[in-house]
């Protein structure tokens, strides 16, 4: 028996967006490239025309391309801006940056961004990483140039969601002890994060700190106001089950304040309790549950449906190198003019197309579809 208290989190995409997303909201979208993108909530944002969004994500770009095409992003903090092989540089985003509609764009590597979400999830002041050292990501800092980093005279941060520094590089207090391969020089050990710096004699440097030593980059926590993630199943109480690759989704879902979970199916709690170790997010972290079958379309949801390669091909054909008005027109016609996601999926995409993407239980994807090479 499900109590009415448990059902309170269940709402439509319209209700979730109206309740939690306002102009200027700092929002993190889950999923990874063409996998489990939370398109239902994103499309509803387009329908409601919520502007000036501060959008972050680790591995876009479908959601962000749509929001940029609809003219709704003001600031973007990301790691990747492309629609795979179909559109290696996401056109609407590029156009919005070039025209100044997206005022600021900040960039991290996938790994350092993942470390930021982990720090945010664990309530830690920072996390260490090595990968970005030596790249121009360290110097490139648009939020700083825009005067958004640091504190005000009253001691508050200039922007509550923007840390005072993009990175801090320090000398490794453990003098390179943890770097691999150091102890196991043959390279045979179970750590995947190895460096050739030892072999190549680059272990010590004076760069960044002026002191000879091993360097570590510290990244600040990510703390968006709203996180949105797509799952296969969510129990009525809010317990979340994600199947297939999870990527950085778990940390990113739990690093903010509000968590909206859109899903293929809302199920009874006992269904997910049967194998509790397969669940990822506990019920009490979830603020809104939105059920929308096929709602990640045109991205893929493992064990349910594959991504629609033909959608990407058509999008490139219709939008690439077109003037801004044409790009906006595409998203207005395909999304903004629809009543809700059922209207979009049923009348714009079509039920036959959706079911043609169904996965084979043996593979968890559909082996008979055209896909990105």
């Amino acid at each position, binding site marked *: 028996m499900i109590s009415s208290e448990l059902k309170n989190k269940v709402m439509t995409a319209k209700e979730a967006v109206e309740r939690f997303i306002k102009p200027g909201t700092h929002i993190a979208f889950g999923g990874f490239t063409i996998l489990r993108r939370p398109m239902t909530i994103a499309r509803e944002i387009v329908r409601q025309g919520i502007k000036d969004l501060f959008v972050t994500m680790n591995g876009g770009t479908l959601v962000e391309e749509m929001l940029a095409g609809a003219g709704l992003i003001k600031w973007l903090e990301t790691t990747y801006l492309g629609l795979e092989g179909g559109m290696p540089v996401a056109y609407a985003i590029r156009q919005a940056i070039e025209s100044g509609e997206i005022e600021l764009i900040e960039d991290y590597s996938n790994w350092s961004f993942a470390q930021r979400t982990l720090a945010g999830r664990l309530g830690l002041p920072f996390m260490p990483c090595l990968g970005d050292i030596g790249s121009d990501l360290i110097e490139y800092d648009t939020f700083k140039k825009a005067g958004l980093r640091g504190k005000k005279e009253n001691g508050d941060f200039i922007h509550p969601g923007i840390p005072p520094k993009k990175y801090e590089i320090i000398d490794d207090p453990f003098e390179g002890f943890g770097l691999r391969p150091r102890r196991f020089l043959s390279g045979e050990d179970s750590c995947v994060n190895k460096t050739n710096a030892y072999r190549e004699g680059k272990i010590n440097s004076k760069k960044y700190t002026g002191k000879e030593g091993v360097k570590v980059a510290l990244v600040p926590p990510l703390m968006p106001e709203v996180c949105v993630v797509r799952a*296969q*199943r969510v129990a009525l109480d809010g317990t979340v089950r994600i*199947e297939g690759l999870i990527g950085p989704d778990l940390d990113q879902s739990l690093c903010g304040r509000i968590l909206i979970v859109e899903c*293929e*199916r*809302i*199920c009874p709690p006992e*269904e997910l309790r049967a194998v509790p170790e397969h669940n990822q997010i506990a019920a009490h972290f979830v603020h809104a549950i939105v*059920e929308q*079958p*096929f709602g990640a379309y045109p991205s893929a949801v493992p*064990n*349910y449906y594959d991504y629609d390669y033909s959608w990407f091909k058509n999008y490139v054909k219709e939008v690439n190198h077109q003037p801004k008005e044409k790009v906006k027109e595409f998203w207005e016609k395909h999304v903004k003019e629809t009543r809700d996601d*059922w209207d979009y999926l*049923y009348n714009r995409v079509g*039920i036959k197309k959706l079911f043609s993407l169904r996965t084979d*239980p*043996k593979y*968890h994807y559909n082996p008979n579809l055209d896909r990105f090479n």
Partner: protein
Amino acid sequence: MKNLMNYIWLLNACNNSLLEAEILSKQALERYDEFFKEIEGIKGEERDCLKKELENSILYIDEKVKFLQLLSEKLKEVIPLLKEE
């Protein structure tokens, strides 16, 4: 269709959960002869433990098969109703 999707995805979740059961039961069948040969040497307490273990397995398998069979039969009743108009 909107009202059917929750049920369709319920069947989908059910089917997906069976993949591991299929792989494991095929493996158990492949190794059955080897297992059967070993039984002759089992005596005393070991024999009792094995008997109980197998009885529990049979009970569990039969229960799952019963519901899956019932579901399959019910779904078959729907197919003729879905002939093209």
